[in-house]
């Protein structure tokens, strides 16, 4: 595989039919909610695009994001797209190890300075000098900064690299931070999710190759994939509107497939494509399987109260607060009321008898 081939050349070399390539472009277009007229544009742009070199750095992560991508069957086009980029460094997927592996990373940075794409999964521990996660004697922070310095753009895959994720969960023992917490001078695209939907990861890359840096929301997510909430696209939404809710996981409402809001569903505050794109080749997604959305593509989802307490409910023990408030109110009320009562009694005591001689203003 030659480095400077275009994607079109690679595809033809590998015998991928134009028909299946267009199908890939069509599904990508629909994923980004683009009109069908954009399919030829995507196809034409992709065909001419150079295969970019990609470095994939894994920090404090569980490999779930990599699992998400690799889980797909090799005959799918999602897999092929990895042939259209040149994935030069990836701990889990690369064959080499040790100094050789690190050498490749350094070589890629040198050869493609300013042109390669950096993908990161996992959060970066910065507490105690970053000792909680090191590779080849370097802290994650050092590796990230060194690699990011010459990258064209960074894609933070998964909630850990995008927002800190589970490693950052309270009390955040390693001082985990997101990529965007450390890197301020590069375009960063966040592709959160725990893990993100495989098609969304590939979709973002296609979008990047086709249209350049995508339009992002306030949390750095491509609007094309994260523009709508789970709640707004949820097939159970009509039940929410009608006020029909499951009260437990095995009640009548749950069996009838009613809304899971009361069971803690985070759909209304979660922006992701699960409800439309679904998982495992469009088979299902958590809500469809009868479980509330955990809100995994949102920052701090692990600390947003119990997964099973409804969004509208307070996260702290308000029953206890109510008791303290009442007790405190009684004490303060007794003190204040006592003072007022004494003031009134003093006024009664200070009463000056009014006689008819006191009535005239002149007197």
């Amino acid at each position, binding site marked *: 595989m030659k480095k400077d081939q275009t994607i079109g050349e690679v595809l033809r070399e590998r015998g991928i039919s134009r028909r299946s390539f267009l199908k890939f472009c069509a599904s990508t277009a629909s994923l980004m909610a683009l009109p069908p007229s954009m399919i030829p544009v995507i196809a034409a742009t992709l065909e001419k695009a150079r295969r970019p070199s990609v470095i994939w750095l894994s920090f404090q992560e569980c490999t779930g994001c990599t699992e998400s991508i690799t889980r797909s069957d090799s005959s799918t086009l999602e897999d092929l797209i990895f042939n259209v980029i040149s994935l030069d460094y990836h701990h889990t997927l690369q064959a080499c190890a040790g100094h050789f592996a690190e050498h490749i990373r350094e070589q890629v940075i040198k050869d493609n300075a300013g042109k390669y794409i950096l993908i990161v999964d996992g959060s970066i521990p910065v507490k105690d000098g970053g000792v909680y996660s090191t590779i080849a004697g370097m802290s994650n922070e050092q590796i990230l900064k060194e690699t990011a310095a010459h990258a064209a753009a960074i894609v933070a895959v998964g909630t850990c690299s995008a927002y800190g994720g589970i490693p950052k969960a309270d009390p955040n023992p390693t001082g985990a931070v997101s990529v965007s917490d450390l890197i301020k001078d590069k375009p960063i695209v966040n592709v959160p999710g725990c893990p993100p939907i495989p098609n969304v990861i590939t979709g973002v890359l296609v979008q990047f190759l086709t249209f350049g840096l995508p339009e992002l929301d306030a949390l750095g997510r491509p609007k094309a994939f994260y523009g709508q909430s789970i709640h707004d696209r949820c097939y159970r939404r009509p039940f929410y509107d009608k006020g029909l809710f499951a009260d437990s996981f095995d009640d009548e409402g749950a069996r009838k497939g009613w809304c899971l809001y009361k069971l803690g569903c985070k759909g209304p505050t979660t922006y992701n494509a699960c409800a439309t794109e679904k998982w495992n080749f469009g088979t299902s997604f958590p809500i469809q399987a009868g479980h509330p959305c955990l809100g995994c593509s949102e920052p701090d989802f692990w600390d947003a109260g119990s997964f099973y307490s409804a969004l509208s409910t307070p996260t702290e023990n308000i029953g206890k607060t109510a008791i303290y408030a009442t007790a405190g109110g009684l004490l303060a009320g007794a003190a*204040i009321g006592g003072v*007022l009562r004494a*003031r*009134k009694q003093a*006024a*009664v005591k*200070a*009463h*000056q*008898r*009014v*006689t*008819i001689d*006191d*009535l*005239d*203003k002149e*007197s």
Partner: protein
Amino acid sequence: MSGAAFARGYNALKEQIDAPIAAFLSSCVHCGMCAEACLFFTETGDPQYTPIRKVEPLRRVWEQEYTFWGKLSKALGLSKPLTDQDLTDWETLVYDSCTLCGRCSMVCPVGNDIAYMIRKTREGMAAAGHAPEGLIGATQRAITIGSPMGVKLPALQAQIRHTEKEFDLKIPVDVEGTDYLCMLSSMEIMNFPEYIGSIARIFKQADVSWTLSSEAFEATNSGIQIGVSDIAAQLVQRIVDAAEKLKVKAVISPECGHAYMAIRWEGPNLVGKRFGFKVVHILEVLDELRAQGRLKVADRETRKLTYHDPCQIGRRGGVLEQPRNLINMVAENFVEMPEAGKMNWCCGAGGGVSTNERADALRLKTFARKKSQLDAVNPDALVSACSNCRIHLEEGLEEYHMDIPLLSLTETIADHLSDT
């Protein structure tokens, strides 16, 4: 104006505030509905007559003295303390444009008894020297002469002699151990002496044991109207002393609204002890006699009659059914004015307004409300049971060129009794 008087008034306001007032003032939402219940607003359209606004001096004292936040904001200079000028500004609102009729207290959606608060506000106003001249004069006469109108015992004795002669009967005076001690208002002695004869005739027919007192015959209480409890108590004490001296079972309040309020409801609280005798309104006595079959009617009134409920007897006093029972006993054609009963509109002269010459023009202006009520039923005669209402109603009818005779309920009963 001395600072000492203001301090006395301010302290008086502080003394008046109790749990009901604190609850009322905490609850006001400034909805303005009380304005629509007040004839001073409905007949003038002037927003300053909105009832709740009239208690502003009291409200300020409550807020600044009896609420934590009010005290704090006063200390921080965020709210202005009450001044003597404020009391000057509020004097006409508290005295001239409120008859203490309590209609606002009936409509307030949060349940504020605004009339209760205006009555209390007057305590502070009067103590600070901000009562109207007319009321001050009446109050001084009540204390020094014994009657706000300056009526003395000889005048009463003359009326008694005259009545005894006219109806050929004996009017008991200072008789010990009777059932009832009958009180009068000066107006009944000076303007409507027929009342004394009516009582005497009815009681004779019903064989009621009663007496007048030469030491305490005046039932009205200017102290209540001006808002000085010390003076009001003094006036009530005279009646208590006479009742105790004559060892009567009950004291009868005459056809007068505020007199009933003064003796029946405020009296024991003013003198600070429960009475050893009952206090009843003349209408209560008459209705009881009616129920016992002791009143024999000779002929019934055929004219169309309607009844004006005096506020302090009806809405504020609880005597609502008795006058209706009595009128129906002697009249064939009794009609109710719209909103009669507990929601009746005040004549416009109660609460000391009639004694306050400064308010005369306003008082007559508000009579338009009574006129429209009367126009709705167009009666041949108007019956009431309060001399104060009666004097003002007569004046109003004249002012508005309405030819409707005014009757006292007691006199109407007496006029229709059989002679046996």
